[in-house]
């Protein structure tokens, strides 16, 4: 990943800057094909995902970008098959290629077809695929100790005794650079700072050595310094454990620093995907461009401060019950073509360099 040099300076703060995955990235780990997840509410059906396709290779880091409500988190939850009620995967495949272990050969599981409460889904969830959530403050049970919560995860997926699980836990806590891991074991979440809690979350997520880690805006709720530490930590751990990461964020800076390949989503659809350089240097979709535009720049009149960067794009994400006809982005699009964009939703075009975009501007 030599192209990600511009992002390096951030890591100078930690004085520890490597960002390359050691695993062969050509082997496909996860394939998402035409995934549709809908929420069946009394007021109507919310089409949270309207046909999402992308692929994750082993060891690869994928960035999932978009504004709030565009379906990033639903995608993540669909992969884990923990879509909250009344949501349901209605169409598509989530093919997860499980690596072989001592007990069983490698297999391909369609997570979309599994009973979400069944044992196979549960063994993959947390074992092969794990997740780090956005809110480290509330993502841990307030009434159980850190140790108990991690040990539970280990006991669920690994065949080991309580003592062994404790040892692993301590080791994991040490790995995420928590001081005095034995002490942390007995602490409750409210006794830890936000950054520490997120480290705990990461430790828990990695405790079963998953092949895929989904990180749903893991640093949003943290201050900048801690953000950087956590990101660095994740990079290190990825290097060490060799897992693939799906990184969900609306922070393009983080994307630039962390990922290999970017998937841009808008209202439940993938509007553009490409490797990180193409996205930053040659964005194609008007939405991607306005996303990039919304990043504040020094020396230029800032439209909005950090706190309101999401509204920096003109207009707001439409009400989920009344998604506009045609291209869903057209009401906010500066390049919209009347009579075209407001009637037909374009298909995903493949441009050179595995760059895909969904916009009439690139119609052949």
């Amino acid at each position, binding site marked *: 990943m030599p192209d990600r040099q511009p992002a390096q300076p*951030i890591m100078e703060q930690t004085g520890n800057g490597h960002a390359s995955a050691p695993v062969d990235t050509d082997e496909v780990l996860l394939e998402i094909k035409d995934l549709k997840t809908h929420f069946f509410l*009394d007021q109507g059906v919310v089409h949270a995902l309207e046909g999402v396709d992308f692929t994750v290779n082993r060891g690869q880091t994928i960035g999932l970008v978009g504004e709030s409500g565009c379906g990033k988190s639903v995608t993540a939850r669909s992969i884990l098959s923990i879509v909250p009620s009344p949501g349901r995967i209605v169409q598509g495949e989530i093919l997860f290629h499980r690596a072989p272990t001592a007990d069983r050969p490698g297999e391909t599981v369609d997570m979309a077809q599994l009973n979400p409460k069944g044992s196979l889904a549960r063994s993959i969830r947390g074992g092969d695929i794990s997740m780090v959530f956005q809110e480290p403050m509330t993502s841990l049970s307030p009434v159980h100790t850190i140790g108990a919560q991690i040990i539970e995860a280990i006991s669920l997926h690994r065949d080991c005794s309580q003592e062994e699980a404790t040892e692993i836990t301590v080791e994991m806590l040490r790995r995420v650079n928590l001081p005095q891991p034995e002490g942390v074991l007995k602490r409750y979440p409210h006794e830890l700072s936000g950054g520490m809690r997120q480290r705990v979350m990461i430790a828990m997520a990695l405790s079963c050595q998953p092949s895929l880690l989904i990180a749903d805006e893991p640093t949003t709720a943290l201050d900048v310094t801690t953000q950087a530490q956590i990101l660095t930590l994740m990079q290190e751990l990825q290097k060490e454990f060799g897992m693939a990461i799906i990184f969900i964020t609306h922070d393009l800076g983080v994307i630039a620093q962390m990922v290999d390949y970017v998937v841009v989503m808008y209202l439940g659809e993938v509007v553009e995907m490409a490797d990180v350089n193409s996205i930053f*240097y040659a964005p194609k979709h008007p939405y991607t*461009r306005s996303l990039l535009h919304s990043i504040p720049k020094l020396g230029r009149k800032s439209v909005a401060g950090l706190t309101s960067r999401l509204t920096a794009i003109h*207009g707001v994400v*439409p009400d989920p019950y009344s998604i506009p006809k045609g291209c869903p982005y057209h*009401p906010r699009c500066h390049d919209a073509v009347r009579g075209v964009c407001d009637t037909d939703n374009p298909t995903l075009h493949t441009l050179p360099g595995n760059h895909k975009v969904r916009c009439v501007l690139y119609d052949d």
Partner: protein
Amino acid sequence: MSQQEIAWIDRIPDIPEGPPILEESVAEDEKLFVASYLQLMWWRFIKHRLAVIAGVMFIILYFIVALCEWVAPYLPETSFIQYQLSTPSRIRWVHDGKLQRPFIYGVITARDLATNRRTYTENKEVVYPIRFFVSGEEYETWSLWSTDRHLFGIDALIEERSLGVVQGQGLFILGTDRLGRDLFSRIVYGARVSLTIGLVSVIISLILGLILGGISGYYGGTLDNAIQRLIEFIRSIPEIPLIMALAAALPIDMDIIVRYFMVTVLLAFVGWTGLARVVRGRFLSLREEDFVMAARFSGSSELRIILRHMMPSFMSHIIASLTLAVPGMILSETGLSFIGLGLRAPAISWGVLLQEAQNLRSVALAPWLLLPGAAVVLSVLAFNFLGDGIRDAADPYA
């Protein structure tokens, strides 16, 4: 962000700012978005079908409270002398094999000489159709106007035999009590007292509980300690003797309803402690939460922190306890009567009616006298489902 990163961002091609092409549709969207929060709440509420039914019930109940004289077919004190403990009138639709508007047959009463029980048999010769807006006993509504129209009833000759004691056929859709008074009319009149007075005390204790519990949990320390000891102390004052002492303190010639009102208000000053403790418990754990910390550090006023950040997170508990307090208030009426402090005849309330029915002979011989209990249950259900509906609709997490 570092200098370099910004430089990097600068390389992004400029995108023209200015109005998007399809401006007007955006404006509409925004309106839609603003409207949709309330709308969403409404949708959620509508979705809770029972809540809607409860809401309708609630409206009907308070309509009855407002216009009980009109809804009741008879005055609550009118005794039909041959109809003591009459079974509920059978409302029929078919006479002589023909479908008709609802009617009742005339009822012949007789007394079993051995047991002294009255028996009631229908005389199929005499038909009394049930009509709307019939004229009956005269009454005055809200001291405003006087009329003899009632929502429904039958046209039957009623003759006053002695004061408030009448002879003749009546329509008793829920039967009569031991003095031959129409139970339905009495329940309707009873709603007025039962559904109003107690609410005051519920609200007072709610407010006190929120404020003192909130202060206690939020500030902690000495203030918390003091309030906790106060609560402990108040809680440990046994209620019954306290009420009895109060009874002795109130002047004896006080109007019974005013007296009852005073007692409920005084009870509210003892009754806030339960909610206060729960609120405190929640505050104690919430104030450790980072979002509260954050709000505090960012200089939000404390009232704002409490109202905006902490309160909503246990709104559902408050609504639940509130709706639970309503049956408590209706039932406490009967409990208070038990120790001579509640309402008593000639005042009419559901508690009074229930208390009068609260003996073995009513349960055994005239079970319809327990129907005021059904009114209590019905209104409790209405309050609770309505509360549930509102809670769920307003729930920020749902």
